[in-house]
């Protein structure tokens, strides 16, 4: 019954753990792709078809490629070498992450609002989502378009060579 959930969860968590612990940045990027594919499967399983496919298109398609290109454009020879890949304050960072998880899990365990009986799966057709996006969510959608345009221009300007300005 929930075997699919456990498989997808294991894939997602294994990918995330690999992305955060592997040594070579390219391996980290490929692990990230594995994790994002698992998450897309979880979205599909939750009945969110459009968001699941948008996840595949945007993250697996675009963001992963961007990360790989950034790795290619930066020379990581020193990191691949014998030097450590973790920063100087790694113990404190790990402690903070564990503390955050413990507090989140404690809050979830105490909450009684989460124990609702399982409801029938809601329907979310793409047509319905599109109607909403073009109707009551038209202003956020336009702002998002503006943000993405500004981002595209900004990313190109930031990544341009500085030397040409001199």
């Amino acid at each position, binding site marked *: 019954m929930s075997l699919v959930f456990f498989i997808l969860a294991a894939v997602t968590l294994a990918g995330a753990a690999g*992305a955060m612990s592997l040594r070579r940045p390219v391996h980290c990027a490929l692990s990230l792709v594995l994790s994002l594919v698992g998450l897309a499967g979880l979205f599909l399983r939750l009945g969110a078809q459009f968001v699941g496919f948008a996840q595949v298109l945007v993250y697996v398609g675009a963001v992963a490629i961007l990360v790989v290109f950034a790795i290619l454009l930066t020379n990581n020879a020193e990191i691949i070498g014998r030097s450590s890949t973790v920063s100087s304050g790694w113990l404190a960072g790990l402690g903070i992450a564990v503390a955050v998880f413990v507090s989140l899990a404690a809050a979830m365990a105490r909450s009684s609002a989460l124990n609702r009986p399982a409801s029938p799966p809601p329907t979310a057709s793409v047509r319905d989502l599109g109607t909403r996006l073009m109707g009551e969510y038209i202003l956020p959608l336009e702002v998002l378009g503006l943000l993405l345009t500004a981002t595209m221009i900004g990313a190109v300007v930031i990544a341009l060579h500085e030397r040409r300005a001199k």
Partner: protein
Amino acid sequence: MVDGKEQRLMLAPNSILCPPSSIHAVNMSPLHQYLILSALLFCIGLAGALTRRNAIIVLIGVELMLNAANLNFIAFWRYGPNPEAQTGLLFAMFSIAVAAAEAAVGLALIIAIYRHYKTTNLDKVDGLKG
């Protein structure tokens, strides 16, 4: 879950996950399972973002945290009280778009930093002077 059956997971007694009143076994609802998974994903991303030295991998950790938040939005939409409004779905979609913008600008910044400092090691990028 798709066919509406109740999913129950028997969990061994555990001091963190069980409230003190129900020591023997706790029935985890599907929402609980998704939230635990999302919290784990968030904390893996947080640990990576806080401990790794390579700026690109720190950015990957931030992406993982954003995805954990998206999973929460979708899970609460699916098991929440008012799924017809589709608020969680729409918020997750906007979140994906903003995260893509963040990744593009973040990676461009990392490339610019690499041009300047000749490294992406965050321990060595510590100057404010240009």
